[in-house]
């Protein structure tokens, strides 16, 4: 009876295009990345197998080490500054009835826009001559700041733009979790005389810990994936002050044709992402579960 749903040719017809395309643009590049990563290929000469040289050189490369440090700054900023702010804003939105939907949709909005266009947009906000921030500074009689050209300010400027774009996304994630908590828990605490702040800190935050962990994991992954905004706003400059691993990799490969070295860097980025998320899982998430039970 069910021969219709057992026709192998139809099955192949439905599955094969997806598998083929997926293999060609995901699996095959992944495999070739690993292969190229162990060669000194520069696009012109022959590919020579060089063992772990690229990986060793990467960690000897002061510019790449500098970009790792910048990635770490981004990571620390998103986990230690953004995440607490995100939790506070979500609690605030969840505590109001009026305008809740409006707040939610507005804070989410920047995360649906193109990172490159946001980079251009904020480039104007930071502009020393006509920019919004410098106009304000000048109104107070202050000297203009060259945000994107100043070693001290460039990375901070990018961090702020990045936070501006993505915080709303995470706020909506956490807000959904808060609104899913049954109302009676909160009401019971209210009857017992707990203040709003107490209820938020002792009730809501412990209950949404799992989703906060998800947000931290996504922030770690996101911090390692930052690249568009850097390429658009500063190109990694001034003097590498905003270079991140991915932007350094793209420049090495496209500008200098160092494909072998570049792919080795991309494997290092992948390894960082895996190791950091795994570490976070093992050290924080597992231990918390033990405490809860």
């Amino acid at each position, binding site marked *: 009876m069910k021969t219709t749903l057992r026709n192998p040719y139809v099955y192949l017809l439905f599955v094969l295009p997806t598998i083929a395309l997926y293999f060609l643009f995901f699996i095959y590049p992944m495999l070739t990345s690993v292969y190229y990563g162990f060669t000194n290929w520069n696009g012109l000469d022959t590919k020579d197998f060089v063992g772990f040289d690229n990986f060793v050189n990467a960690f000897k490369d002061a510019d790449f080490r500098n970009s790792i440090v910048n990635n770490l700054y981004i990571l620390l900023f998103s986990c230690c500054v953004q995440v607490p702010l995100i939790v506070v804003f979500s609690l605030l939105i969840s505590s109001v009835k009026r305008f809740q939907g409006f707040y939610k949709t507005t804070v989410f909005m920047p995360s649906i826009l193109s990172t490159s266009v946001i980079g251009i947009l904020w480039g104007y906000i930071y502009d020393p001559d006509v920019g919004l921030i410098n106009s304000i500074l000048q109104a107070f009689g202050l000297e203009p700041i060259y945000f994107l050209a100043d070693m001290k300010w460039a990375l901070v400027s990018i961090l702020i733009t990045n936070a501006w774009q993505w915080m709303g996304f995470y706020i909506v994630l956490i807000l959904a979790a808060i609104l899913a908590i049954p109302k009676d828990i909160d009401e019971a605490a209210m009857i017992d005389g707990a203040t709003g702040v107490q209820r938020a800190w002792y009730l809501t935050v412990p209950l949404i810990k799992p989703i906060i962990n998800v947000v931290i994991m996504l922030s770690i992954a996101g911090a390692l994936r930052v690249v568009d905004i850097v390429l658009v706003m500063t190109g990694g400059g001034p003097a590498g002050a905003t270079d991140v691993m991915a932007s350094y990799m*793209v420049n090495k490969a496209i500008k200098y044709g160092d494909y072998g070295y570049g792919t080795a860097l991309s494997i290092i980025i992948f390894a960082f992402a895996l190791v950091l998320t795994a570490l976070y899982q093992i050290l924080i998430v597992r231990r918390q579960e033990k405490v809860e039970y």
Partner: protein
Amino acid sequence: MTATVRKSIPHMVMIAYIVVILAPFLFILFSSFKANNTEIATHPFGLPKKWVFENYKEAWVKAKINVYFFNSLYLALSSAVVGVLLAAATSFAITRMRFNRISSWVYQFVLIGMLIPGNVLFIAQYLLVQKLGILDTHWSLFLPYTAGALPFSVLLIAAFMRSIPHELEEAAVVDGMSVFRMFFQIVLPLTVPALVTVFIVNFLGNWNEYLLSFFFISKDALRTLPSGMVQFRDAFQTNYALVCTGIVFSVLPVLVMYTFLQRKIIEGLTAGSVKG
């Protein structure tokens, strides 16, 4: 502290945040109508003294924003549609057809893709499209965009198709319906909510994609908005009003879409991150 004051604190904080979100857009919007740079610099917040609409015409035609716009539109649409159809066909095969062992392998295999961050594959994909001879054509974007959306699309559509009761297609089989008609006339219409979500997520992702479109395409006539805008900014660096107009052009369609489909968009984008 009175109750009303205490109640309004969350609103005050949130309004401050909303202002930080919206101020850049207003600044860009007002600037795009201003006559010249001095007006932008001296009245950053003010409305334009005279609304200059010529910027829009100039950006659209002379600065080729229209070219970028339609390239973006047709690439984002076509690869989102093809991606949804491919993912739907595959999801149908692995959730409804009777090849359980192979299906679970196929499913696992496709989901591995969600673990790989996009920019890790950048160089290898660049070399791949170069080898395929499609560098600097729209194929070099269409294929990676379509492929890149598959893991998430299969995940979401397959989950949705699993929830459709099996009696439905049993009845169809008994009635002698062919697999294709079953797919197109029964399962696909029932899956529309998931298909729409996936389509929107893919469309937005493609519309906004920068890295590949900037480095895989060097012909100006083939550029999409995100990469074309960067090119445009570098070319018209000093004409702030014109670049602001360009920004309005690239942001507006997404914002219009967002006002109508906000719930669907938020649901789709957040589903992708949490389930992944």
